[in-house]
Each structure stands twice: as structure tokens, then as C-alpha cells.
């Protein structure tokens, strides 16, 4: 036992993508690890996939916006200051409980944007420093895909082969081949063949965004958690953390939380690790004020909560004459087009984007606007319009790099609180000029692709409101304590036994989905903490 005077050696707040990975890594070294998670285990019977009304779950029990879903475990978010709503899941496994599992890696240039392109900041480490942890993470969670993409550095063989290639892929391919653009089958955090325990391979049922009832999706509650629990990690569910406690010297001592009966409790630990995501972590640090940290824990710099990045997303859908059955097969990425990923200033902006070539949804969601918010008209044209779109549509997400700006931030709302009276977060965000120029250009490219592919109708949502899936940058990493909250090991500059390991660590956002990087960063930080626990806790 490293620090017997505390309830635990390490206290992790949040059991999502990063918290689960760190719990597994730290417990492997024999440390006593406790994780406080405000949510619960999602049970197999909670999933709607076996019911004819499964698509309703998108609007109700499995809605991605916690303000809409309104589980008792959710907390409210004041979204009035942002055109993009933050989305998340508050449960064991966090936001990986219902997600799309699109699992690309960042590229080497993504870690060096100041050096290469003169914008934002470099990360405090390189792609090559992170590569072993990407590999370790993939081997833990199980990824389907194919190594050999010329758009990315060589990588280890994927755990299971790429997913099916159906009529929708053929449609995309027509366009890609005509234009001569890059594409590659996506890495996906889901298994196409047997892998791991108590998991079935994907049977292409479709709606991954309302969870995966058979464990094919590599969500943290089916990948890391069973292993972490077997290694002795104590996971306390329905435990809502109110604040991180500190001693007079300003060292973290643990957390105050409300248990499942609403009783306020304290848990002490030698080291506290924040894994509550890019909104939840700054919210808790800002709420943890003390004489030493009047503006919130580790926030004498004022950087906690600032530099919030989303990936502003546009959806572009192509409607085809032929049946493409976009509702069959995992909804997320089938193929990636990274033709426009690296900076080319002739395009009028710095940095780049990817086209995430995805599938579509069932008839109810199509009627209500599909992925795009273009409802099918009612009345005499209804049936014809519905039938021309349903099973005939493929949707591409334009995912672009969002540059960090200090004005985009998470703060504490002065009035709104959660069910325990804890101040709720308020999110302020606007897409910067570079982003807006890139959005315009990238939507035009997605249109060009669908035109080349022969789509008969093209529908566009130029900035999707419900697209704050990726919550990044609000406790950013860096070497400069004036411009960052933590160092390259996740250790707070102002509080050496406080670590942050979730999406808020991102120095810059890259133009790919973040979770493979979030988990690789969490494993790297946990590895360092495991090796240096005594010094960190001292």
C-alpha cells in the first residue's frame, strides 16, 4: 500500500473513456484505486434495439443531449451562449456508452501546429511519444480497420478486419474515384470478429448511436471496466462529486461527493485524477475554491475552462436513385477522406479537415429530418418524399480542426444548479474566422463528392447544433503555466498531486474524432503516474 493514511492511493473522478483506461493502468501497478462516477451501469434491458420503436430512443432515453435526456444522473448545461450543444453520457463508460466508435488517430503534424503552421501551441509531446499508447489502447479495446493508409503513419495490424462494404460505400467510391481523392476504411472502435470476453462481433444492426446491446462497440464499460474491476478497482456509482478538497498547502486531499442516498461524503486519496470530460472537469475544478485557489483549483492562471474546442460539424447528405440502405451497418465512419487534411494556405485557411463518410438512419429519423434537420414534408407528398430518402441516403460529416481561443469557455452558471445544488456549467462558444472559412470550403468539397457520386439531391446542415460530441481543451496541456493547466504527464502546474487525463487535456483539436487520442493520453499519463506515484503523492 503506497499511502495507507488515505482511503485510496488514487481517486479518479469519472469512469468514461479516460477514467476507465487509467483505472486499469494504475491498478495493474498495485495501487489502490477508487473511481467516483455519478452515473450507473447501463443494463442490457435498457437498450431499445429489439423494439419496433427503437428510433424513439434518440429523442428520449438515449438522447445525446443531457438537457433533453434528463436522466437523474445527468446535470444541466446552460447552452444559451453556444451554437453547438455539448453532448455526453453520464454512466459507467461515460460518453462511450452511446457513440459512433469512429476511432482515427491524430497525425504527427497535429501535435506541432505552432512549429509547422504558426498557430495555437504545440503539444508537449509528439505523435511518436504517444504511438505506443495508441497501440496499447487498440489492443485493449479492439479496433476494426486496416493498416497501410498512406494518409497516416504505418500502424500495427488492427485487431479485427474492416467492416462490410455495401451499396453505400460503392456510391461514395464512384465519387472518390472520379475525383481521385484519398480514402481509406475507417478505424472503428468496434469488433467485426470475435475479440475479448463477453462480447459479440458487430452484426451490422445499425443504430450504434443509441448504444450497442451486444458488446460489439468498444465502449469503456465493456473493454476496460471488467478488467479494472478484476484488478481490484473500487467503482462507486451514483457518486456525484461536488468538489476536490485541498489542504492548507494547496495539495489535493480527495473529494466531497453525494452518494446514492444523497448523503454528502468525503473520500481521501494521495493523488486525484480528473476524468469527468471537457465540461465536467473544468466545472468541478472551478467549483473547488479555497484560500489558496480562490478562482478554482489549479486556476490561478485563469486557464481552467478556457480554450474550449468542439469539432464544428457540417452534415452533407446525398440522396441516390438506387437503394443504398444506409440504415444497415454501423452508423459511424465507413470510410475517411483525408484529401484536405494538411495545411494548404491557397484554400484560404490554415489546418484542415476530413470527410467522415457515414451511413444513415431508419424511417422515423428520416421523416423527422434524418441526421440533418430537414424533415420530410407532411401531406400529399409525404410518402413519396419519405420513400425517395429512406434507404437512399448517405451522410458525410465534415469534421474540421477547431483552433483554441480563450474566449470559448466553460464557466459556472450563476443561477443554474444540478439536483444536488452544485453549480451547473455554462458554455460560451463561437466558431472563429478560420473555422468559418474552412466550413464553407469543406461543405463545397462534400457537395462535389456527392455530385461526382451521382446523388440526385444534396441536403446540407452547415453547422449542426447537436454536434458537441467532442469536448476538448478546457484544462489544456503545455509547458507554459500561463497558457496551460497541466504538463505533458497530466500533472497540474499549480498542484502536483492533481492530474487531468480526459478530453480537456487537448492542446489543439486536430480534425479527427478524439477518443483514441484521449485514451492513449490517459494511458500515457497513468503510466507515468504509476511509475512516479511516491513523488507525486509526497
Amino acid at each position, binding site marked *: 500500500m503506497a499511502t495507507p493514511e488515505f482511503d485510496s492511493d488514487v481517486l479518479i473522478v469519472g469512469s468514461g473513456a479516460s477514467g476507465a483506461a487509467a483505472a486499469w493502468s494504475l491498478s495493474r501497478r498495485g495501487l489502490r484505486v477508487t473511481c467516483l462516477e455519478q452515473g450507473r451501469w447501463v443494463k442490457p434491458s435498457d*437498450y431499445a*434495439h*429489439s*423494439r*419496433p420503436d*427503437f*428510433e*424513439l430512443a434518440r*429523442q*428520449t432515453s438515449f438522447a445525446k443531449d443531457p438537457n433533453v435526456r434528463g436522466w437523474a444522473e445527468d446535470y444541466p448545461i446552460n447552452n444559451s451562449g453556444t451554437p453547438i450543444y455539448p453532448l455526453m453520457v453520464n454512466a459507467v463508460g461515460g460518453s462511450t456508452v452511446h457513440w459512433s466508435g469512429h476511432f482515427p488517430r491524430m*497525425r*504527427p*503534424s497535429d*501535435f506541432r501546429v505552432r512549429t*509547422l503552421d504558426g498557430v495555437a501551441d504545440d503539444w508537449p509531446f*509528439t*505523435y511518436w511519444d504517444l504511438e505506443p499508447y495508441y497501440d496499447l489502447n487498440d489492443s485493449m479495446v479492439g479496433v476494426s480497420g*486496416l493498416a*497501410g493508409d*498512406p*494518409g*497516416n*503513419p504505418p500502424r500495427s495490424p488492427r485487431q479485427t*478486419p*474492416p467492416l*462490410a*462494404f*455495401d451499396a453505400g460505400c460503392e456510391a461514395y*467510391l464512384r465519387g472518390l*474515384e472520379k475525383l*481521385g481523392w*484519398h*480514402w*481509406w*476504411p475507417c478505424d472503428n472502435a468496434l469488433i467485426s470478429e470475435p475479440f475479448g470476453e463477453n462480447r459479440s462481433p*458487430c*452484426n*451490422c*444492426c*445499425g443504430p450504434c448511436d443509441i448504444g450497442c446491446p*451486444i458488446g460489439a462497440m468498444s465502449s469503456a464499460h465493456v473493454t476496460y471496466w471488467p478488467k479494472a474491476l478484476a484488478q481490484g478497482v473500487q467503482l462507486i456509482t451514483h457518486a456525484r462529486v461536488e468538489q476536490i478538497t485541498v489542504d492548507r498547502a494547496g495539495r489535493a486531499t480527495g473529494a466531497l461527493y453525494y452518494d446514492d442516498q444523497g448523503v454528502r461524503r468525503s473520500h481521501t486519496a494521495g493523488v486525484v485524477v480528473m476524468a469527468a470530460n471537457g465540461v465536467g472537469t473544468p466545472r468541478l475544478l472551478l467549483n473547488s475554491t479555497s484560500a489558496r485557489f480562490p478562482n478554482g483549483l489549479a486556476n490561478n492562471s485563469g486557464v481552467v475552462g478556457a480554450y474550449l474546442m468542439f469539432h464544428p460539424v457540417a452534415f452533407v447528405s446525398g440522396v441516390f436513385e438506387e437503394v443504398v*440502405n444506409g440504415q*444497415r451497418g454501423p452508423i459511424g465512419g465507413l470510410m475517411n477522406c*483525408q484529401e484536405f*487534411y*494538411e495545411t494548404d494556405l491557397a484554400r484560404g485557411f490554415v489546418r484542415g479537415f476530413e470527410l467522415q463518410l457515414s451511413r444513415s438512419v*431508419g*424511417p*422515423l429519423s428520416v*421523416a*423527422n429530418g434524418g441526421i440533418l434537420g430537414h*424533415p420530410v414534408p*407532411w*401531406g*400529399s407528398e*409525404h*410518402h413519396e418524399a419519405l*420513400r425517395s430518402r*429512406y*434507404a437512399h441516403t448517405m451522410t458525410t460529416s465534415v469534421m474540421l480542426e477547431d483552433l483554441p481561443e480563450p474566449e470559448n469557455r466553460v464557466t459556472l452558471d450563476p443561477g443554474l444548479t444540478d439536483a444536488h445544488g452544485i453549480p451547473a456549467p455554462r458554455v460560451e462558444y463561437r466558431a472563429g474566422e478560420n473555422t468559418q472559412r474552412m466550413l464553407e470550403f469543406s461543405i463545397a468539397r462534400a457537395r462535389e463528392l456527392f455530385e461526382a457520386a451521382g446523388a440526385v439531391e444534396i441536403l446540407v446542415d452547415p453547422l449542426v447544433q447537436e454536434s458537441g460530441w467532442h469536448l476538448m481543451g478546457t484544462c489544456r496541456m503545455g509547458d507554459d503555466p500561463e497558457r496551460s493547466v497541466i504538463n505533458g504527464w497530466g500533472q497540474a502546474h499549480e498542484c502536483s498531486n492533481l492530474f487531468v487525463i480526459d478530453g480537456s487535456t487537448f492542446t489543439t483539436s486536430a480534425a479527427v474524432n478524439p477518443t483514441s487520442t484521449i485514451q492513449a493520453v490517459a494511458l500515457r499519463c497513468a503510466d507515468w503516474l504509476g511509475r512516479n506515484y511516491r513523488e507525486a503523492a509526497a
Partner: protein
Amino acid sequence: MTARILTPEELALLTLVQDELVPAHGDLSAAGTLGAALTVDAYLAERPLLRRPVLTALRAVEAAAGETPFAELDSEGRVGILRQVENDDPEAFSELVKQTYNAYYTRPDVQASLGIDGPPQPLGFELPAFDESRLARVRAMGKLWRDA
């Protein structure tokens, strides 16, 4: 089955409105005739936040019909009223449409008419395997990433 939230008059009006929103198609009756109004009533019972927009839209339909009750109008007249309400209060009206679509497209008979023979699980779908030979052109593109 009786409604839990809607009065019998509101239920009858909603049924007529839904028949215009999603008319009959092939062998399938229109949404209202199929019973979508009772399903929407159940949604209103389960999700109180839906009540205000849906009831607001229904009342607006009634008010717009004026002297001649909505039920006594022909289909063209009813559609005219609905367009007017949609124009005047798009938010409330779109919620009414959305809940009607919800009630209609979650019915197995409606899904069957679209070729859907059951929910996604447990059977899923069988799709063709990925064919690596399709990547020949892209493989030949050479390194496309910047080292750093």
C-alpha cells in the same frame, strides 16, 4: 382505450389532423385512422414538456377553422388550415408533426410497408465483406502525411 391527457374532442381533432399530415398509402390507412392520436396521447402523458406545443397547435387549428368546424371541412380546406397554423406558429406545429411521425413510423405494419421485417436486433444484417483490391489506387498515392 381512453386518452390520458387529451379530451375526447381533442383526440378526435388530432385524429383528423393526423389523417392530413400522413395520408393513406397503399393498403395502409392514414395516421389518424391507424390510431396515432392515442399513441401521441401516451407520449404527452410520459413527457409533460410535449404537452404545451402539441396542445397549442391543436387549439390553433380549432381557432383557425373559425365558424366551420375542422371536421366539416373537406381535405383541401383542412390542409389550408394546417398550412396557416404552420405559418403562424411553426415551432408548435412542427412538434405536432414530429409526434405524429413518431407514432406512425414506430408501428410494425408501417415498417413492414417499407420492407422492414423487424427491429435491428437480434438479427442485424449481413453485408458483403470488404474487398482490399479496391484500395489499389489509393495505396499508390504514396505518403500523404507530414512528419513532425
